[in-house]
């Protein structure tokens, strides 16, 4: 059996209920949600609504219909940025952003949106005071990655949210690495727009994700089309979620995502977090003992998620990742992890790091095997 330590990219395996829910829908229902009045369509719609309600429970969202489904977090972030910002608006992001937020932000800069990138410290942490200093009269939005996909660093989103609310700035949170692992409460943390993906911590399949938009905020859709509502009207409806959900949804995927979220709610976030912290502690303490090794990110377990990036002197991270898979069947990811800003911040350009990201289904014994494997590889190949 392979040892899968790439949960920060896609979580695997999924809870059994995710596979069965998707299979059951495909075999027995299969109809389009939100269209027509047949019992089949209603059954689809009810299942899609259930996923919205489960997500609303997890993120403490009062109205589940303020959640629209997207392909992934990247689409959700593009929607939030391109559907709200206009030339002359000022956008603030951090020096730890993933390309999913950074690339659309830099693309918008070419169209007249002003962009500030607030630097983070060597462990990837944002200082809220630095963010406050970057605020200008035309600052419209702050976009922030909740937890880093490179270092696992958790940003102080509640503090940032409070600051944004005081200054009447929209607060956009990229929860790609935190949803399903860290507590997210859109009210308490003053999150105006929450972008999430289904295929990582939420334990759903690839091709699922979504966006929560606080009541009172309107987003221009990236695409128009059939929504099943206002069918006689040639204009796109402006109600959530229909306005952002043109075309047939990824219904089987959304139903799988619902099963993933139900699993998380049944286990409880605390239990999931504790298990992942134990694995992270094992990795962190044992990797540090290996000669020539640098492990990145916060040493405080409460300040990070289960993402452990490392580099070894005189070794290419990609080479380590290849050896781990070929010789030990350990699946990791090496390189820049689509986050050049983060690597610039922690000083790992251009080579990047090798990243280990265990999940809820990873066992302690698997971590022991991985640590021993890395030890052997570095002993054998490090010049």
């Amino acid at each position, binding site marked *: 059996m392979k040892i899968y330590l790439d949960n920060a990219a896609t979580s695997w395996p999924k809870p059994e209920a995710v596979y069965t829910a998707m299979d059951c829908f495909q075999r027995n229902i299969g109809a389009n949600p939100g269209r027509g009045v047949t019992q089949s369509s209603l059954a689809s719609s009810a299942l899609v609504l259930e996923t919205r309600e489960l997500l609303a429970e997890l993120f403490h969202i009062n109205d589940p219909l303020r959640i629209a489904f997207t392909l992934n977090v990247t689409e959700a972030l593009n929607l939030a940025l391109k559907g709200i910002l206009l030339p002359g608006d000022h956008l603030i992001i951090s020096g730890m952003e993933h390309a999913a937020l950074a690339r659309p932000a830099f693309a918008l800069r070419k169209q007249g949106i002003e962009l500030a990138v607030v630097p983070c410290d060597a462990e990837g942490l944002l200082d809220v005071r630095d963010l406050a200093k970057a605020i200008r009269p035309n600052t419209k939005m702050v976009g922030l990655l909740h937890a880093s996909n490179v270092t696992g660093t958790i940003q102080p989103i509640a503090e940032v949210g409070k600051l944004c609310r005081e200054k009447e700035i929209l607060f956009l949170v990229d929860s790609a690495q935190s949803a399903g692992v860290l507590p997210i409460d859109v009210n308490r943390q003053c999150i105006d727009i929450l972008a999430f993906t289904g295929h990582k911590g939420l334990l759903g399949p690839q091709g699922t994700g979504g966006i929560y938009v606080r009541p009172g905020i309107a987003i221009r859709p990236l695409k128009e089309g059939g929504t*099943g509502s*206002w069918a006689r009207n040639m204009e796109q409806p402006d109600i959530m979620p229909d306005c952002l959900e043109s075309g047939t949804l990824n219904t089987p995927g959304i139903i799988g995502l619902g099963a993933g979220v139900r699993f998380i709610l049944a286990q409880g976030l605390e239990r999931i977090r504790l298990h992942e912290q134990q694995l992270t502690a094992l990795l962190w303490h044992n990797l540090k003992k290996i000669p020539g090794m640098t492990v990145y990110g916060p040493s405080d377990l409460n300040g990070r998620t289960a993402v452990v990036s490392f580099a070894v002197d005189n070794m290419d991270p990609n080479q380590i990742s290849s050896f781990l898979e070929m010789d030990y069947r350990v699946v990791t990811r090496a390189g820049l992890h689509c986050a050049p800003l983060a690597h610039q911040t922690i000083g790992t350009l251009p080579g990047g790091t090798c990243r280990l990201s265990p999940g809820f289904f990873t066992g302690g014994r698997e971590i022991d095997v991985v640590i021993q494997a890395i030890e052997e590889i570095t002993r054998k190949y490090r010049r």
Partner: protein
Amino acid sequence: MWVITFLSVFHALRAEKILQKQGIDVKLIPIPRQLSGSCEGLAAQLAADDVKRAVTILTANRIEMVRQGVEVK
């Protein structure tokens, strides 16, 4: 019969759940033809006595309605 109509199927389904939780008996039906000028989709059919309370509950839950209780013959 009395109906409340909604902007989309998701709103209708959500309304059904919320009202049932509050003990109001509703049945989702296709929007009656006399009303379908406004939109297409589903309506909640309910007893005349429940209409006022249902609209109050749905308003409190931010469920947008197209027709907040209308009698259809």
